[in-house]
């Protein structure tokens, strides 16, 4: 039983990490109705920019390497870089495609992926970097000693960060003018424009917020596995989460993440040995596919009804 609980808790906490990446997708989808294929590349770009600034700032400004000042300055500069990236994306990629079919915008984000990946490596090099956030990735001693259950301190920290982000974003969408404008844009570009909502500004804001989410996700995943190209693969983990939770729901991303995380770990441990193992890669997709049959809009997604 202890082992089952450990697998379950570990899975739930992993799911929160997936949800962190999924949040970025949800934001862009809500604002433009586009599945942003470049979200994984943005996570990589953000994390690499952060560690890149951490490396160069001490030399530029004569600061002590690894100090708090360098950390927060690098964070701020990386966030500014994400805002610039978002603004450039809006200006160069999205603006010329206003009112084009969604598939056109989706294809544009595929192209954007290659540009962002290349830009990141061209600017900061291809070296793999470590990232230390000061939180040790080890089990909580009390739980281990008393119940023999290993729950990582780092995973709990990541869960806390994700919960805070969700709360912040929920407030933004529900209770601010920008949030309401954003939902209007998501529903219909033309209608939103006709009532005076500045589409370009909303898109820039959303891409900046998605950039911030990518930065946080990149830092957490980077601290866990190193800052390297493989951060782009985190998007693969977010896809089934989105299908399950719904592309338009922030809480859905979290719930979807929890379900995917827990079920893939339980499946790997209890079903994997009977089918040769390594099922974590495809099991979430199979689950999402099965889910689509019963609820195509996801758990919390908006039901789309077309009048004939």
């Amino acid at each position, binding site marked *: 039983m202890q082992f089952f609980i450990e*697998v379950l808790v570990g899975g739930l906490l992993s799911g929160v990490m997936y949800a962190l990446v999924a949040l970025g997708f949800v934001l862009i989808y809500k604002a433009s109705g586009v599945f942003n294929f470049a979200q994984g590349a943005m996570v990589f770009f953000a994390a690499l920019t952060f560690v890149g600034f951490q490396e160069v700032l001490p030399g530029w400004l004569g600061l002590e390497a690894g100090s708090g000042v360098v950390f927060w300055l690098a964070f701020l500069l990386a966030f500014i870089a994400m805002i610039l990236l978002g603004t450039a994306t809006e200006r160069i990629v999205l603006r010329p495609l206003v009112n084009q079919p969604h598939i056109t915008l989706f294809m544009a984000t595929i192209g954007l992926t290659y540009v962002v990946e290349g830009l990141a490596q061209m600017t900061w090099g*291809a070296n793999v970097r470590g990232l230390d956030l000061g939180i040790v990735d080890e089990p909580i001693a009390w739980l281990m000693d008393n119940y023999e259950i290993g729950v990582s301190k780092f995973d709990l920290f990541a869960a806390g960060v994700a919960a805070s982000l969700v709360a912040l974003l929920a407030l933004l969408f529900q209770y601010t003018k920008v949030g309401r404008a954003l939902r209007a844009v998501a529903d219909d570009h033309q209608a939103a424009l006709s009532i005076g909502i500045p589409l370009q500004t909303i898109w820039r804001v959303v891409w900046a917020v998605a950039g911030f989410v990518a930065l946080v996700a990149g830092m957490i995943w980077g601290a866990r596995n190193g800052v*390297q190209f493989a951060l782009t693969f985190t998007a693969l983990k977010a896809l089934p989460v989105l299908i399950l939770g719904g592309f338009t729901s922030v809480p859905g991303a979290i719930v979807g993440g929890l379900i995917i995380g827990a079920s893939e770990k339980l499946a790997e441990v209890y079903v*994997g040995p009977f089918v040769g193992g390594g099922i974590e*890669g495809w099991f979430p997709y199979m689950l999402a596919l099965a889910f689509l049959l019963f609820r195509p809009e996801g758990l919390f997604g908006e039901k789309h009804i077309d009048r004939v």
Partner: protein
Amino acid sequence: MKLKKTVLLGAVIAGLLGSSLASANEEQFIGLPSYRVGPYAAGGSGLFGGWIDYMQLVNERDGGVNGVKLTWEECETEYNNARGVECYERLKKKGSTGNSVFQPVSTGITYSVLEKVPQDKIPMVTIGYGRTDAADGRVFPWVFPMITTYWSQASAIVNFMGQKEGGMDKLKGKKIGLLYHDSAYGKESHAIMDKLAAKHGFEVIKIAVAHPGNEQQSQWLQIRQAKPDYVVLWGWGVMNPTAIKAAAKTGFPREKLIGVWWSGAEEDTIPAGPAAKGFIAAGFNVAGANYPVIADIKKHVYGKNKGNMEDKTRVGSVYYNRGVVHGIITVEAIRKAQEKFGKGKALTGEQVRWGFENLNLDDARLKALGATGFLPPLKITCADHEGPGKVKFQQWDGNQWKVITDWVDSDRPLVRGMIEESAAAYAKEKGIKPRDCSKEG
């Protein structure tokens, strides 16, 4: 008469001048299918940097191989099979004599061009990767999986564990976890580990990690439950630091986690941070800049600002040194082939193939190259395209790799038996008549 003599003399002088000019312009082309962007760029930039630096060293210090300058061109594969094949086609006719050798640095690309190289008469060298049974040169005359194959490596790792335990008989009843990348590369370990388990009486617990391997919680929970004595990490890319960190999280001692050579570079340990301290990995080359060959590269190449590495601190890293090993083997094969086909001449791929097949890097030659202990002594024959099948083990001390063993042998009779069996099956399937090596010159 006088005019005739003058014309004749002039023609002779012109002929001599022409031939000397031709010799001075001889160039040997080497096509490099590299990967400097994409998921594996970190390793690729080190490996190809070291390789190019070594060839540059030969040009700068020695004026080429017996006066034949080495030239090269990179072709970006991004570690993608389709692009690898495209690069093979693009490079094969470059240079005055075509591409001398194709070294794909990817098992996938190796398989993709395996049947093309005999047709194009270009030798394919796969150092530390590729198709293991191609070590049987009777069936695969054009393929050279040199120094050591995956099967030899697995066997050497088990031998190392035996050494640690105080004898191979002490492995009886032990449990060895095999955490492998769920791909053809990862599964290459299964057959040999099963054979070794049957021979030495240990149990193998195989645990697959789905690509890319950035999430391994469930695998390490299974490992914690099974309580193995050792875990072999057969990983690639992000799977490696993730495994090392997960081992630390579950309290598995890093000294008992033994990586293969694609798991044992700075790119695998640095992202894992302090968790990597104590981690051990096999290698057919070692890390470190305190070898005369590296000192020469620093002096003759970086001293003239002709180095390939943007980040010079990576000179002497595992991947960089692996690139230098690629360079040494390539250059020495060309040198060997020139002994037979003419010193100072650019050679065809077919001629260079002979050089690879007759390569003999003994202790004296390695010493002359400034590479004693850098790679194992290597002798290739018509039948054996692998060579020594040995590895050294290195341990990460928190900052750098430290060599902790001499060259550790594999179980040669067992591995060679498996190679010959597998190669014979391939020959039968493809209708290939194995060469009679007693008739090869």
